[in-house]
């Protein structure tokens, strides 16, 4: 089902921690619910962001949803490919469709997030 190497939020975002930097994206469930994604409004590199804050939006042909940041820290990179090819979020939500990276202030925040099994239960229920 969903990859085991990362954590999940109830807003259907995923967080993959590597060397103190969290890569953030949306799950395949979120992408398919939204439909064809046409635009992602991203935070900017250098932004200080706080856990659960709205930092942008994801727009599909039928809806616009807020983009939350699941961890606290500084935005260090955004996926430059998304601007020209937002459909990456639909086709490769867990890989090429990642959105942005945050250098975490406190890695303990990861413990508050769901693991793949818990997230799978949300989807299943």
């Amino acid at each position, binding site marked *: 089902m969903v990859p085991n190497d990362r954590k999940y939020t109830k807003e259907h975002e995923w967080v993959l921690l590597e060397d103190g930097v969290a890569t953030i994206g949306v799950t395949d469930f979120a992408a398919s619910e939204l439909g064809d994604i046409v635009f992602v*409004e991203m935070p900017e590199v250098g932004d200080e962001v706080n856990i659960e804050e709205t930092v942008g939006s994801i*727009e599909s042909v*039928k809806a*616009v949803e807020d983009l939350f940041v699941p961890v606290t820290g500084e935005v260090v990179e955004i996926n430059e490919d998304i601007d020209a090819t937002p459909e990456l979020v639909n086709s490769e939500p867990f890989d090429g469709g990642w959105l942005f990276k945050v250098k975490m202030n406190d890695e303990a925040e990861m413990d508050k997030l769901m693991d793949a099994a818990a997230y799978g239960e949300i989807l299943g229920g």
Partner: protein
Amino acid sequence: MPYVPHTPEDIQDMLKVIGAESVDDLFSDLPDNVRLKEPLNLPDGLCEEEVLRYFMQAAGKNHGQNELTSFLGGGVYDCSIPAAVDAIISRSEFLTAYTPYQPEVSQGTLQAIYEWQTFVCRLTGLDVSNASMYDGATALGEAVLMALAASRKKTVILPETLNPRYRRVVATMMRGMGVKVLVAPAGQSGTTDPDGLKKMMTDDIGCVVVQNPNYLGLVEQVDALSQITSGTKAILVAAVNPVSLSVLKSPAEYGAEIAVGEAQPFGIPCSWGGPLLGFIACTDKLKRRIPGRVVGATTDNRGNSGYVLTLQTREQHIRREKATSNICSNQGLNALRATVFMSMLGAEGLQELGEANLIRVTALRRAVEGIDGLELPYDGPVFNELVLRLQRPAAEFIKFARSHGVLGGIDLEKFPVGTANDLLVAVTEKRTAWEIENLAQLLKTFHCEAEVK
């Protein structure tokens, strides 16, 4: 013949069905003391002929620009309008159509809007334009909101030389948004002082507005101002007179990322302040923030070309709660007027139109130079408006000129730059050499009287 939808029999039938004795019974819940007991205090009815005569006589009290010679400008100009403009927009398909709710069925309307957007992009040099805005002032307000959203700042700098009506509209739109509005001072030249602006630039500034030509008719030092904003987070917004763009640099050429303005001079009459026609254009980078709707060209599955609403009023559909704009319609008919006007003139015609304005303002300058007591306070380049500094308050001259069938210009007494004796005079392509000479004669006479006094 009166038009009454219900006959007495109809009314009786309806009362019977609901079990009421009379129409008055329907109002029995209203206390007696608030009910009107006598007929309304209105004059007797008039027949069609009488109504027509009544309004023709009332309209005859107006003294419009066909009867007077107008040197009024300041944002709305007395311009020539080819008869074909009215002929084309009077087609019922255009004239009676409301904003298209099932847009792709209205291919003609979409094509007209697409052409309009194309004209606006070519004039401004920018990438994307929308289906139009209400007027230049609200277009500027929307542009400031776009710039602040994109830069994620809360402070805007407006020039002191901005049209005061635009400034009031922008201030109103910013109220409640928590936006701070600063004013960049004008220098002795009557244009925005680049050093003054430079001193105001802090990290908080998200938007800087320049109006070119400015309210005093003067061409701003756009390159110097643009240099100050480039490299900062602030987005440069240019408010322009589109007629001037055939002879002046386009906003894109001096680094403006958003351009707005009033397209009234393109085939729309001055009629007591409206309706006007705003336009807005921006860079590709900002296109997601443009308000309203954008029409695009495409091909259908059979390879035929066609038009679609590429971006719809998202404010009204999928992101209502996140809307930064509440514009929900467009000035469709006026945008069509401007489109017909521009397509009739073409690139060469627009060039000639711009030059005609320049030639006339030069003629005005020559005609008034040397009038004793009259000064030209600013010597910078102008497009079609000139400030004259009179010996007495401008209001007195305006009254004097009006008594000779001339609308002499705008009194700048309340404008923060200049003096109470300053008069803003506009000369469009419509003003003849004789009319300009006549204005100069009136100014001469006015100043002779000053000397006698």
